[in-house]
């Protein structure tokens, strides 16, 4: 790896490092922060570098911890709450949805609750239904709560920084299935506002548009490689911020390609994939569609443990490529 090439997990760690070194309002709190495994090596030695007063490991108290961070945010601090799995974060969800997301609106902007919550998607490995969930679609339903899903090492770092510096409450969702991905990371630009963080094209292609966020961008890239070998060129849109969501780039792409596959690591019903389709259907002229759009999502079931079931439960690149072929060849 060259100096500015790093893994996604290291990108997250650098984000914390930059924030703690540059902004005294920032502290981080949650479970596993002093653990020898340091949340999948994404927070290694931060406690040693910045002290246990600012890098706080907690009792098993998701609700109290998250709500206390909201209180500190109201007082002007910039807490980043860590939930090592989104499944555990469900216990701390009331203060996120009922308090932080509404605080600014409730008081007509006289006070804000700029908390950052880091929810980690951690699944597979026969962990079963309560240690596997990707609940981003749920949270993206809530006005006032920004939801970020980094897909690359530089976004892993930068979305954490921009999210924490934002005056809005932010849910930052990273994915353990991306931690080993590497990417090139440039200088930190702390002045970017989340209102300017829109989707990005990760690949250009004229035959079909693949839209995803977080881990599904990796799936899309792998599928595009498979398809390129068959002469099919896929264009890939990485959403990055799923609430509020900006449909413009995806709609422009679909207007050119006429075909859309939405890929999401959560369930289909009322989920992100449905929102992607709705956004395109509302914006792309009927005459521009060459085929009905498709969705690739989880099977409509809780996560099973057995490896034989996991193998058919999670979407994969072959499945994405197959859906793309079907749209193209009919």
């Amino acid at each position: 790896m060259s100096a500015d090439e790093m893994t996604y997990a290291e990108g997250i760690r650098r984000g914390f490092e930059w924030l703690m070194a540059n902004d005294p309002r920032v502290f981080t709190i949650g479970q596993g922060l002093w653990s020898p495994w340091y949340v999948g090596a994404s927070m290694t030695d931060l406690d040693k570098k910045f002290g246990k007063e600012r890098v706080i490991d907690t009792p098993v108290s998701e609700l109290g911890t998250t709500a206390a961070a909201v209180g500190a945010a109201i007082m002007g601090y910039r807490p980043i709450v860590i939930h090592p799995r989104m499944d555990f974060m469900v216990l701390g969800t009331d203060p996120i949805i009922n308090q932080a997301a509404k605080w600014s609106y409730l008081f007509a902007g006289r006070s804000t609750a700029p908390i950052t919550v880091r929810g980690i998607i951690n699944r597979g490995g026969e962990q079963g239904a309560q240690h596997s969930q990707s609940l981003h679609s749920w949270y993206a339903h809530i006005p006032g709560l920004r939801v970020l899903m980094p897909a690359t090492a530089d976004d892993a770092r930068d979305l954490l920084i921009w999210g924490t510096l934002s005056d809005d409450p932010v849910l930052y969702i990273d994915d353990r299935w991306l931690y080993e991905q590497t990417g090139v990371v440039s200088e930190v630009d702390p002045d970017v506002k989340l209102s300017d963080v829109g989707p990005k094209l990760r690949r250009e292609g004229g035959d079909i548009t693949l839209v995803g966020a977080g881990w599904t961008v990796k799936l899309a890239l792998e599928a595009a490689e498979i398809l390129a070998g068959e002469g099919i060129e896929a264009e890939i849109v990485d959403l990055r911020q799923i609430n509020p969501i900006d449909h413009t780039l995806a709609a422009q792409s679909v207007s050119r390609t006429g075909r859309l596959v939405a890929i999401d690591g959560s369930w289909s019903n009322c989920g992100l994939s449905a929102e992607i389709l709705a956004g395109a259907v509302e914006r792309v002229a009927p005459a521009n569609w060459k085929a009905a759009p498709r969705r690739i999502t989880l099977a409509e079931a809780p996560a099973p443990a057995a490896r034989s079931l996991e193998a058919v439960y999670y979407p994969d690149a072959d499945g994405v490529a197959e859906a793309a072929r079907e749209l193209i060849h009919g």
Partner: protein
Amino acid sequence: MKPTFHKLHRSTLGDLVEPGAYRDPVRIGNRSREALLEDLACMLRIRKTEEQVGTLAEQGIVKTPIHLAIGQEAIPVGLSRHLRPSDAVFGGHRSHAHYLALGGDLDGLIAEIMCRETGVASGRGGSMHLIDRARGFAGSVPLVGATIPLGVGAALALKMDGQGGVGVCYFGDGACEEGVLHESLNLARVLNAPAIFVAENNLYSSHLDIAQRQPNDRLARFAEAHDMRARTVDGNDVCAVAAAAEELVGAARAGDGPGFLEVITYRWRGHVGPDANIDVGLRRSATEVAAWKKRDPIARLASALIADGALDEAGYDVLKQQELERVNAAIAAAEGAGFPDPATLLDHVYSEGA
């Protein structure tokens, strides 16, 4: 650097948390020797199961996350002697022992840990999702604290049934940090629900020592805050656990309200997986682990029975060998069984089908 709030911790458990104490053979008094030999066999079954499962995980054969209860065997064995199949018992992430102590089927447990179709949850759940309703094991799930209120609700249902049943929930010292424990204790008291709260205080939650998480290491203080009958005993003494359980379960069955059983113990292995997790907390050093191994609940019962003449060394060896063979037979059976058929992926999402 020491965490600041550690300075605020006060230990009030006395020598119950001293690994050097409570090493003598347990006092068996006039308890039935036959029953104690069964308890010994059951504790050995749990230990051999956990050791073999640990080995399978080391070999990469078991993938599901395993939380081993080696060192904690006396708790469910002492308690389960006073439970009935018509009671309802809930466990958490570390529940192989809870299940086996109720007489849960060994083959079904091993097959579930190996995620086979023949497992107790047909391979859907893995190590952290066990069930055996015929034995009274109502289910285990790994969201910390989640089963505490389920135990209260089961107790309420059993109270409505009017047959003297009790609802039981096992949880750890870490789970006491979830707000739901406190709601559940209050609720059980005001509803006079026949609930038994079993707090397995092994002094750790994952990598953190209780001294880093709570101002006091005695969990029974939570029960006292809700005016609930509570006992704190040596969890590595099967007779002490059984005596306290008999009293609390008896009172609950008689309509005299819920009970809180705090048992002090220690896990010999790490939080998750087969290794020992040395040097992760404030106190969990190799020396501490070695010291706690001398407070072995199995050896303490075995030596009491040997001193009493109810067992001899040769008989003890036979017992160990028998239990190991049972476990190995269950592993062989599971290895021969298939993984769930992918075509069944959507079964049971809805009871009436999708």
